[in-house]
């Protein structure tokens, strides 16, 4: 696959590039980044656009196998490229869970058949995600898993957590943790604070996340293994990571766009598209996340893309499943809330979305250096984007419905092939049924 991307503003934080350059991809890999390249290959004119290493999402729920009514590997990866992602890490909480080689191989095979971007499976930490005994981590690694996680639930047993860290360190892969104390959370559906009190909804205290983060950074210190904390959402968790990092603990972490952008007070609408776990937090927590992103404590922005069917979300707030989709909106939301709001600059955002995820999970990509994967995202910083259903994703449970944003990915190139081009949509998204309306 050969492609010449011309006249774009190339931002590659991995080599501190930021300038008007051309990018030549040959045989699916980056051949050269230079001024005015001449090559007799297909050209993509990126004049006025930004060209970056392809985005990589460390936290995606593709739902296949088992919950194809919510999303499939095909639709989830189509949503990914529509958001500028060239690779996603598929979480293990499928049905059956990805706790054995056969499931990993199925995911990889289906992604090769019908995927629009690269898919890196994340294996389970424990058999059946039950938190009782280790899954066959070496076999999972051998089959292609890049990390292990029981995401969706915490690893409640501290001994199991310690052993998982030790064992995974032998396999050179991180243990990814979802930090939540189920007892502190009992029945909780939103952040515990003034608004949970006002709405009479059961709260999820910040301490629920913070107590487990504190435990796990201590275990990471003990084992010298690589701990990666998923979807950090509280000030205390950011502070724990900051302190552990400065003490030399091998801990990395990610934050999700919805936690960066939104507050618990929005739940006053009772919209089930604002229900996720961890929940939207109060403003002091959000401020701490922004500070963590600005000072580098937070390594990565990951979407926690969690598609659910319309029917599953069209119920009382208490009864709705946790989770929101995020692949298609992540860049636009982060560009609005982080770059346009001057928390960080654009190269730092590109780093958070591409170089840093590659580094943290030790994945190929995340750079435009010669010889690396020909995975490139092209962004139009001025393109208006009103978030609305239908999405490319099968699901429409977005926390940002109705938001008017500016700046979005307009083309996504995977291995030198254009897999998404806003100017020439490859496939028509399926029309969605609108909710029934009564005459007024």
């Amino acid at each position, binding site marked *: 696959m050969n492609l010449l991307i011309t006249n774009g503003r190339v931002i590659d934080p991995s080599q501190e590039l930021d300038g008007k350059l051309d990018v030549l991809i040959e045989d699916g890999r980056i051949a050269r980044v230079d001024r005015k390249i001449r090559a007799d290959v297909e050209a993509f004119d990126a004049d006025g656009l930004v060209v970056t290493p392809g985005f990589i999402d460390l936290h995606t729920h593709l739902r296949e196998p088992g919950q194809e009514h919510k999303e499939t590997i095909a639709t989830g990866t189509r949503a990914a490229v529509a958001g500028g992602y060239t690779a996603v890490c598929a979480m293990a909480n499928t049905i059956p869970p990805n706790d054995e080689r056969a499931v990993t191989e199925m995911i990889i095979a289906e992604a090769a058949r019908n995927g629009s971007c690269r898919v890196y499976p994340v294996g389970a930490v424990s058999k059946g995600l039950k938190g009782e005994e280790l899954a066959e981590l070496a076999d999972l690694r051998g089959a292609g898993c890049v990390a292990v996680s029981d995401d969706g639930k915490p690893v409640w047993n501290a001994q199991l957590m310690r052993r998982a860290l030790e064992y995974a360190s032998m396999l050179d892969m991180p243990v990814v943790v979802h930090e939540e104390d189920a007892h502190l959370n009992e029945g909780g559906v939103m952040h*515990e*604070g*003034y608004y*949970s*009190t*006002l*709405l*009479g*909804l*059961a*709260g999820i*205290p910040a301490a629920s996340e913070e107590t487990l983060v504190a435990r796990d950074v201590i275990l990471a210190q003990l084992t010298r293994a690589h701990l990666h904390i998923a979807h950090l959402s509280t000030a205390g968790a950011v502070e724990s990571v900051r302190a552990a990092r400065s003490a030399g603990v091998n801990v990395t972490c990610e934050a999700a766009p919805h936690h960066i952008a939104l507050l618990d007070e929005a739940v006053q609408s*009772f919209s089930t598209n604002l229900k996720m776990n961890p929940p939207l937090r109060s403003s002091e927590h959000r401020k701490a996340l922004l500070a963590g992103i600005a000072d580098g404590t937070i390594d990565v922005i990951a979407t926690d893309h969690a598609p659910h069917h319309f*029917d599953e979300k*069209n*119920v*009382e*707030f*208490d*009864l709705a499943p946790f989770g929101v989709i995020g692949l298609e909106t992540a860049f636009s939301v982060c560009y609005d809330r982080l770059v346009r709001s001057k928390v960080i600059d654009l190269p730092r955002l590109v780093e958070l979305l591409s170089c840093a995820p590659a580094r943290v999970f030790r994945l190929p990509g995340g750079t435009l250096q010669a010889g690396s994967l020909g995975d490139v995202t092209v962004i139009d910083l001025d393109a208006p984007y009103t978030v609305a259903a239908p999405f490319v994703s099968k699901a429409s449970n977005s926390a940002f419905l109705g938001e008017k944003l500016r700046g979005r990915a307009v083309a996504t190139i995977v291995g030198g092939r254009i897999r998404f081009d806003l100017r020439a949509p490859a496939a028509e998204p399926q029309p969605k049924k609108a*909710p*029934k*309306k*009564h*005459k*007024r």
Partner: protein
Amino acid sequence: MRTANSALRSKDLLGIEQLSPEDITLILDTAEGFKEVSERPVKKVPALRGQLVINLFMEASTRTRVSFEIAEKRLSADTLNFAASGSSVEKGETLIDTAENLMAMHPDMIVIRHKYPGAPKMLAERLPASIINAGDGGHEHPTQALLDAFTIRERLGRLQGVNVSIIGDIAHSRVVRSNIHLLTKMKANVTIAGPPTLIPMDIERMGVRVVHSLQQAIQGADVIMMLRIQLERQGKLTFPSLREYYNTFGLTPERLRGAKEGVIVMHPGPMNRGVEIASDVADGPWSVILEQVTNGVAVRMAVLYLLGGAHMGGE
């Protein structure tokens, strides 16, 4: 044609939070007129003749359901009672489907009681009928707060400056939230009391004083409102035993000795005698508990009338 203070501005009554002090006064003043209807030999006015009101009670209720039904009948509305048990809800039908099906039969108003916060709002956003919240989880119970206010106003002549202490399971109570909204809007002073395990986070931001002693709550109060302790919470780490609860927060005649002259004791019901309130208090001279029930009908008539009137106005 309506004047500004002859009807509520909104289609629905979802909570007290959205009401203005003028709305509240309008409802209470209207209820005064309706209270008199209930004292007539023929307890009926034709105000809602031809209107269909569905009472959609998805959670157990005696007082509120009966009170609404009586209010509807005294306004000459056609009423239909719907309970979750024995309905297609037991077959797994969703709330929205149930409500849409009922709506297809063109009710003018739906009174809903539901286990989960926000359920009335879900219906209000989707259905053209007026939705009245008869209690949604731990969120709001607006007609209870209105009947409480009616009772306080009738007894003490005013709401402004009245000291109201609300004691008990604050965390799980919809009654307390609606009362706090109403009383603070009407410039009463609200104290809440209970063990810290039953006080939700940051409730002070709703404009109330928080104490953890029954004596402190009683002192200086014009109104003492006791809340039901949900027996099923015993052993759920919120308090050690009903015995200990009664010993620390149960309202007894002895403890009322520290109260102001003329204090009134309220309870939204159902009561647990010997848990949060001694029978000598519940049945004693301080108690206005049965007056609250009587006033409930008048207040609900007022709410139905004001929303029904708005509906007839063709908005």
